[in-house]
């Protein structure tokens, strides 16, 4: 049933559905040609690509002029058009229905959530990188040869800064973990303001999920059953 010309596929292996298509093509040895589309370089937004797929997405399959998008449609097309082992997309109606059931459910479940985690992790890495630049500047510029940000005494600047730097703790991350100079400054601020520090941060502490060592680093006894 295979056509003479190999099927053309437009893929970026950074994309999950593209990888699924690629794996089916290669392990079932369907004759194909891969056209790499670098999403990071915006190659899916060129006029040529848009002409082929208005939605500017990968994967795209082109089979002798027949253009098809959507990975589950593509996978099912390949499994039926080409001579592949039947288990990939069974013909028996109830077995096939099971596959159709999963591929439908997949969109708003597996795909939605795993993809989101990846996107957020990338964004988080960028944010952490930017934060590191700021922490380095705090240490080398503001805290250079002085105990507080603006001199020998605590100022309102220290209050603003410490509250921001404490915030990620609410999500379980101590961003000062690898910055001993900033940790020492934090302790100085805590000493200078006394118990008002923990009172202010009580709500934040309640949200913390952290390893036991952090409680020691904080040096105080936060509210709640931590």
């Amino acid at each position, binding site marked *: 049933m295979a056509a003479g010309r190999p099927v053309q596929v437009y893929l970026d292996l950074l994309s999950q559905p593209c990888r699924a298509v690629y794996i089916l093509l290669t392990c079932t040895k369907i004759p194909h040609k891969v056209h790499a589309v670098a999403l990071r370089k915006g190659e899916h937004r060129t006029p040529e690509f848009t002409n082929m797929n*208005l*939605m500017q997405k990968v994967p795209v399959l082109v089979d002798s002029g*027949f253009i*098809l*998008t*959507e*990975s*589950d*449609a*593509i996978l*099912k*097309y390949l499994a*039926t*058009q080409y001579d592949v082992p039947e288990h990939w997309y069974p013909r028996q*109606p*109830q077995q*096939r*229905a*099971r596959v*159709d*059931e999963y*591929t*439908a*459910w997949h*969109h*708003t479940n597996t795909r*939605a959530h795993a993809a989101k985690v990846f996107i957020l992790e990338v964004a988080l890495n960028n944010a952490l990188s930017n934060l590191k630049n700021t922490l380095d500047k705090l240490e080398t510029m503001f805290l250079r040869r002085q105990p507080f940000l603006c001199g020998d005494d605590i100022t309102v600047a220290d209050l603003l800064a410490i509250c921001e730097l404490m915030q990620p703790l609410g999500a379980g991350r101590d961003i000062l973990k690898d910055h001993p100079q900033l940790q020492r400054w934090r302790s100085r601020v805590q000493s200078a303001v006394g118990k008002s520090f923990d009172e202010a941060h009580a709500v934040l502490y309640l949200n913390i999920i952290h390893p036991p060592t952090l409680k020691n680093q904080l040096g105080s006894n936060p509210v709640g059953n931590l």
Partner: protein
Amino acid sequence: MAVELFLDLFSQPCRAVYIFAKKNNIPFEFRRISLMDGEHFGEEFGKINLMRKVPALRDGDFYLAESIAIMIYLAEKFETPDFWYPTDIRQRARVNEYLSWQHQGIRTHSSKVFWLRVMIPMVMGVEVPKEKMDAALEDLNSSLKLIEEKFLDDRPFIAGDQVSLADIVAIVEIMQPVGSGLDVFQGRLKLSAWRDRVQAAIGKELFDEAHQAILGAQENVKLLDPTVLQASKSKILRYFM
């Protein structure tokens, strides 16, 4: 024993299954599951579908969820006319393409608009911030534009000259915001013309019957017991807002 279909016609995918089954005179037992009354959380329904969603099918000891899988299964089992889900591989792929795209492409947006316009303000008594509503409407508009430009283009139906499962699945989703009082067909000539064709292909009587509940939604929800949704209130708000 006949096939059992567990449905609530408030739900778009349930309407699609209902329309498809009735149009093709497929014999089935209609098992009404009222989502608004939380019947999908009942013990009995949990045995039908662990994920507690409608539509669901029971055929003897075979259980199936997901409207698309259900319709394809029924099409095959009851040998419905070919155009609904063509045996021609490329035409079938065209239908599959739409059925795949629509999950995130339109279903998400049409559901959201309905919830933001009706369920959340009217049943849960929570005001929806303007920017959330505007964003949801913008997403819906983009989807409708794509349906007109790509999935319809210059064709009478999504797959070509004849109606298919793709058109049924599309129309029920587009009707959801209509149920919230938003006439999405206004100003969209291509979409309106396609709607008329789909209605004619399905049969206006069946189409209207299937959509009676959702089109009366704004009135019907006033009769709802708001405490039923209380338990899932924070989850619902987090999901939609």
